[in-house]
């Protein structure tokens, strides 16, 4: 699929999602179960993206120095570093490991 089609499709879906509450459903409170499910969508998708992003390349398992980068990010997060610092730690440690370990 063309990249622009993806950009347009996601843009339209997001605009509708954001407008839905304020335009159509003002003041309506979804049932507790629905709220619990919706609250879990973000963490489960993010967890899957992290796991696949670090451990796979295409359709193959390929654990490599990206794990060192993830470890560096974890240490930065434990030390309560802000987002940009976490990213820089992960990127720098991955680049360094790659240069040193081949």
């Amino acid at each position, binding site marked *: *699929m063309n990249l622009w089609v993806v*950009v347009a499709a*996601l843009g339209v879906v997001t605009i509708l999602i954001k407008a839905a509450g304020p335009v159509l459903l003002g003041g309506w409170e979804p049932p507790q179960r629905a709220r619990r499910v919706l609250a879990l969508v973000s963490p489960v998708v993010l*967890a899957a993206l992290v796991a696949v*992003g670090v451990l796979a390349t*295409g359709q193959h398992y390929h654990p490599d120095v990206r794990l060192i980068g993830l470890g560096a990010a974890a240490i930065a997060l434990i030390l309560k570093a802000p*987002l*940009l610092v976490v*990213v820089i730690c*992960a990127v720098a440690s991955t680049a360094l490991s790659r240069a040193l370990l081949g």
Partner: protein
Amino acid sequence: MSDTGYLSIKMPAGWQAVTPVAVASFGFGISFGVVAIAAGFSASAALVMSATTFGGAAQIGTASVLGAGGGGAGAAVTGALLNLRYLPMGLTAARAYRGPWWRRALQAQLLGDEAWAVSRRADGSHNPRLLFTAGAAVYVVWLAGTALGAIVLSSLSNLSDWGLDMVSPALFFTLLWRQLATQRAQVAAGSAVIVALALVPVAPPGVPIIAASLACLIGLVA
């Protein structure tokens, strides 16, 4: 607005909250610009996406599925799932939007995690002025950051030598880190990792992520 007096008293505290949020969003925007170019976006596609989708995790999720060789449908669904949280957030903030429907629909496009959090009052309602200003500030710096990231990156070659393939996992990891407060979230995230990794060898890129999203249904039972 009828309650301008009240809001103008709140403004200094509001601006103090908006500034660090805008700085952080600028850095996040730069990261998205980098990830988008690395995934094969043109700078204009990255900017249009930042202007219309305006959701960091969703944009980077979509770009990383495309960058990993996934199909367009899988990439768009991944992004849509990550923006689905704006439905409940838009519901709780709904009363802060005023005026005719088209104006509410337009203003709601500035909704983001930061603006939602900064404008939230102790009683669960939202400060309309702060919701709008924080959203507008983040929107502007998000576009500026995207442009800067995309332009700077266009001048680099061989991105993995620079470790830039770790930008999106590190961003996702940071966002995830903040969402694992409950045991329910931890169990769901762990299940999602297992499902996604199990499907990697058998399903095309992108599909493992969408399949793993079903782990959110744990919320129905626990």
